[in-house]
Every structure is written in C-alpha cells, then in structure tokens.
C-alpha cells in the first residue's frame, strides 16, 4: 500500500467518480443523436418541423409528417430500443457467464430466432407471423438449452449451459441452412439472407409499439436484481456462500435477458457485435458494478446502433444490412481492445 497503490487509487477515483456524469452525458447525447437522425434522410426535415410533429402542433408539410410518423421516427425508436436491449442483455450475459467475450447469442437466442424467422419466410407467412416465429424461436431455443443443461447433474452448471448453447445453436444453424437450400431462390432466399443480416428498413410503427412491452418486462427484473447479478458474477459457489440462491437467480436473469433479446431480434433480424463490444466499452468506462454498467451499456448501445443505422440508410442508394456494418465496425474495434490489454476484465 505504498506510493504505487496511492497513485493507482487517484486515477481510479477520477475514473469511477465520473460514472454518474458520464451516464447523464450519454442521455443528452442519445437525445441529440435521435433528433439529428430524425432530421436527415432522403426527405430532410428541419428541426422546427420535427418539433412541431413531435409536439403534435399543426404542420404545413404533410409529407414531412407522414415521413416522420410512419417511417423515420419508428425506425429511430427501433434503433434505440434494439441497440439498448442487445447491449443490456450482453452486459447481463457477460457478468453471468463471467466472460467478457460472451454476447447475447451465447445460449442460441439469435440463431433460434433466425430459425423461426426463416421458417416463417419459407412458409410464406405474413411479416407479423415471421416476427412472431422469430420471437418464439429465440425463446424456445434458450428454453431447450436450459432444460438440457439443468438435466445434467454434478457438473459446473455454467459450463454445461454454455456448451449446450453452442450445440443447440449449431443444430439450429444447420436447420437454417437446410431451409435456405430448400427455399425459392428468387423470392424467399433474398428475404432470408436479408433477415439474417439484420435491418430496420421495414420497421413499422406497430413493430415499435409491440416490442416495447416485451423489452420492459425483460428489463424490470434485471434492474431489480442488479445487485444480485453482481454477486452472481463471482461464481456460483461464492454467490451461494454470500446468501444468493444462484440457480434460481440465474434462471430469472437468463429468462429476462432472453425475452429482451428475442423480442428485439424479432423486429431487427440478427445484428451481431453490439451485445459483445458495447458492454465491454461500458465496463471500461464505468466499471463492472451492474448498477452503472446496465444503464451505461444500454445508452451506449442505443446511441451506437442509431448512428450505425442512420449511416446504413443515408450512406448509399442501396441500404447496407446492419449486421454487416456492426461486424465491420465491431471486429477491428474488438481486436484493438484485445491488443490494448486486459482493461475492464481479467
């Protein structure tokens, strides 16, 4: 506890005390980003018009009103919600599995949702049913993984859960491939491919309204149990010694995070990397305490996906699928994180 320790304390203090202002700053940043994103696009809108539409006061430009209410604002809202939910679920899973390389897909939720959606497209279902299939597919896959894992007794439960997730996930992946082979190559296959790469291009107002309750229902237990999630990140044995019913808490937390992920994936398709990279960055800035990590991850995720989605729809004539952009941005960034050292984890 000599000079060295003191010096370290000082820098740490500076960093950690900044957590609350940082989160407040993020809120402001996300609001500004949202306003900006709502203004730009193929049909630009001024801030004045946007404000009048948002506050419901009379607008002379009927086209602007339609564009904003039917297309752009739902899409902005969806980007915020999807980004926040994926990053929040990622933060939860990384703590739960004590591994910073974990993403919300670890238990197969995205692959399962993908299989559901692909099945829906293959059966030429309407969009609402494709979304419903995706949602059910995601939940069912994680449910099966959990059932398999809990029927294996006497092994490290977290490890069994992860391995079961990998196995069931790759099985679902094989089914997706099978459906792609069988699908109509001119009509269904492009739709399948596009869905699996993720996009918010076809977001409708009712999609946003439909996904909000599911995300909230998933989020509430995570917020309420935030302290227990910290304790659980020490491992089952220590958590139990500290008075936490580890198995029960993990079940609730996995169910909540899966609900959040499955519901947003149902409207966005598979968007990788957000749930992996964003919580990692958030942890580097505000530390691992879930109290701060959850809001910081969700805000960063919301802002990040909004930025990426706005680029996706404004950069070129043809929209770039989101999953491709998040991978192009996420992969090198993650490599940089790895090269930089073990900051934020051990």
């Amino acid at each position, binding site marked *: *506890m000599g000079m060295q*320790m003191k010096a370290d*304390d000082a820098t740490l203090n500076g960093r950690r005390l900044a957590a609350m202002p940082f989160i407040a700053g993020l809120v402001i940043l996300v609001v500004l980003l949202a306003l900006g994103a709502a203004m730009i696009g193929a049909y630009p809108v001024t801030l004045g018009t946007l404000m009048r539409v948002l506050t419901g006061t009379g607008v002379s430009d009927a086209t602007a009103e339609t564009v904003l209410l039917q297309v752009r604002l739902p899409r902005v809202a969806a980007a915020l919600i999807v980004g926040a939910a994926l990053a929040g679920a990622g933060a939860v899973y990384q703590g739960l599995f004590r591994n910073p390389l974990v993403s919300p897909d670890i238990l197969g939720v995205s692959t399962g949702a993908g299989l559901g959606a692909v099945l829906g497209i293959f059966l030429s279902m309407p969009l609402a049913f494709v979304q419903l299939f995706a949602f059910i597919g995601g939940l069912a896959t994680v449910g099966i993984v959990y059932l398999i894992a809990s029927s294996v007794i006497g092994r490290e439960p977290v490890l069994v859960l992860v391995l079961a997730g990998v196995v069931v996930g790759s099985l679902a992946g094989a089914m997706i491939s099978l459906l792609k082979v069988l699908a109509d190559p001119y009509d269904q296959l492009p739709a399948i491919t596009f869905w699996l790469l993720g996009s918010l291009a076809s977001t409708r107002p009712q999609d946003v309204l439909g996904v909000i309750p599911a995300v909230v229902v998933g989020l509430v237990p995570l917020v309420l149990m935030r302290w227990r999630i910290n304790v659980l990140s*020490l491992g089952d*044995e220590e958590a*139990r010694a500290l*008075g936490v019913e580890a198995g029960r808490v993990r079940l609730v937390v996995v169910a909540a995070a899966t609900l959040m992920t499955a519901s947003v994936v149902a409207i966005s398709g598979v968007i990788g990397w957000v749930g992996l990279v964003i919580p990692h960055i958030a942890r580097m800035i505000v530390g691992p305490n879930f109290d701060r990590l959850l809001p910081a991850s969700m805000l960063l995720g919301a802002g990040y996906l909004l930025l990426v989605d706005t680029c996706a729809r404004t950069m070129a004539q043809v929209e770039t699928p989101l999953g491709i952009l998040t991978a192009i941005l996420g992969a090198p960034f993650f490599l940089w994180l790895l090269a930089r050292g073990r900051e934020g984890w051990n």
Partner: protein
Amino acid sequence: MSPTIETQDLGIGYPGHPVGRGINVAISPGEVVCLLGPNGCGKTTLFKTMLGLLDAQEGEVWLDGAPLTSLPRNEVAKRIAYVPQAHTAHFPYRVIDMVLMGRTAHLGTFATPGPHDHERANDALDTLGITDLAEAEYTRISGGQRQLALVARALAQDTPTLVMDEPTASLDFGNQVLVLEQIMKLSGTGLSIVLSTHNPDHAFACANSVAILNEGAICAHGAPEKVITPKQLHTLYGVEVSIEKLRDGQTVCAPSFAH
C-alpha cells in the same frame, strides 16, 4: 451454549466418490479451531459441506442448533461467512464493492446496499486496516491485500462464525503474519473461527483447538500442544519434526532435514 457449527457423523465428498466419513466436530462460540491435514485430505471438501455448498453424503451439519438442510441460503449466510482462498476475480470490482457483497444476505431480493451497509463495509475495511484500498480495483491489488479484502467481506457479512480456507496459503511471510494477527484480533471480539492451514506453527499461534484430518477422518482433536506432537506430524507429513518453545513462549515446529 450450543455450538455454532456441529457435524454429526458427517460423510463428505461426491456421489460415488467419498472423501471422508464419520466426521464429528463442534465449534463453540468464540473458539478458534484450526484444521490441519496433508494435501488432498478433504479440508476444503469438509468446509464446503459445512457451508452447504456441497451436499452431505451422510450424517448432518447443524448451525446454531438448526439442521443446515432446513435453512435457505441467506439464512446460512447470516450464520457463517466463508473466506475462500485468495483468488482473482473476473471483473475489476472496487474493493469496497467486493466487501459490500458481504452484505447481500441482509438485503432483500431486489435491494441494493444502503447507507447502513456502506457503514458496515467501511468498518470492516477499517478493522483490517485496509481503508485506503476501498477504491482500488480488486484485480489490481496484491494476493495478501486480496486475502484481507475477502476477510473484510466476511466481517461485513456480520456472522458469528467465519470459515477460512487456508487464509495464509500463497501469501508471503509478512502477509501470513498480518492475516494471523487479524485472526487473533477477531477471535478476541467473540467470533468463532474455523481455519485450515498447512503450517502447524499457525495453529500454535492462533488456535484454541486443533483438529487433524487425515484420510477422510478426524484422527485427533484437542488443544494444540496436546495434538501437535512430533509423532503426529510424522504420521501426517512423513517428516521428522522437532517442536520447540521459544523464549517468549511461542511454539514453533522445525523439520529435521535429512542429510
């Protein structure tokens, strides 16, 4: 007074892989019991069974007169605090957060630590003299400091009994003394402490009684000077040891090296 922990014909281990059986130990309030035994004799398994982290294979564990199996985890955690061997955490929690986690058993399912819990955590850091580590990251402090932080967490848990698994293992000489001094200080405040060690000197230094665990059974139990004899140590460790009393009354064990 009823023992804080009592084991009754306890069988420890895993289904199909027994580690020990017929273990009867009782820890009285305020007592320091030191568990000695060679590597792999089942010390950690016994501790984990006492804490209910592993199921008893036979017999029963009683905490304050209640059967362990009848208690939910948070009730167990209000009775016994566990100090695992100093480990590296996966995430860089601040030391104060680690210590606050000791308060979990006293919190409701949806609660986070309040001002009272912070007070208890700070008291625990203060007791162990590591207040200035509060804001440091648990992953960036030394092994000895981590061990002290884990002891602080156990103190914040506010239990009548502490179970410490080799609290001096992997610590340098100075930190070993530091931790032992803390154990003596804590027992002076009325806590019951069970600890395991590989160093019989430590039993002489801080224990009221010593239990010897060998090949899955308690083969001796009693006052340190009665139990720790050259013959016993030879049985346990297969080496010749002479036990000497120093001028200040301290007892030390010195192995006789083969020439």
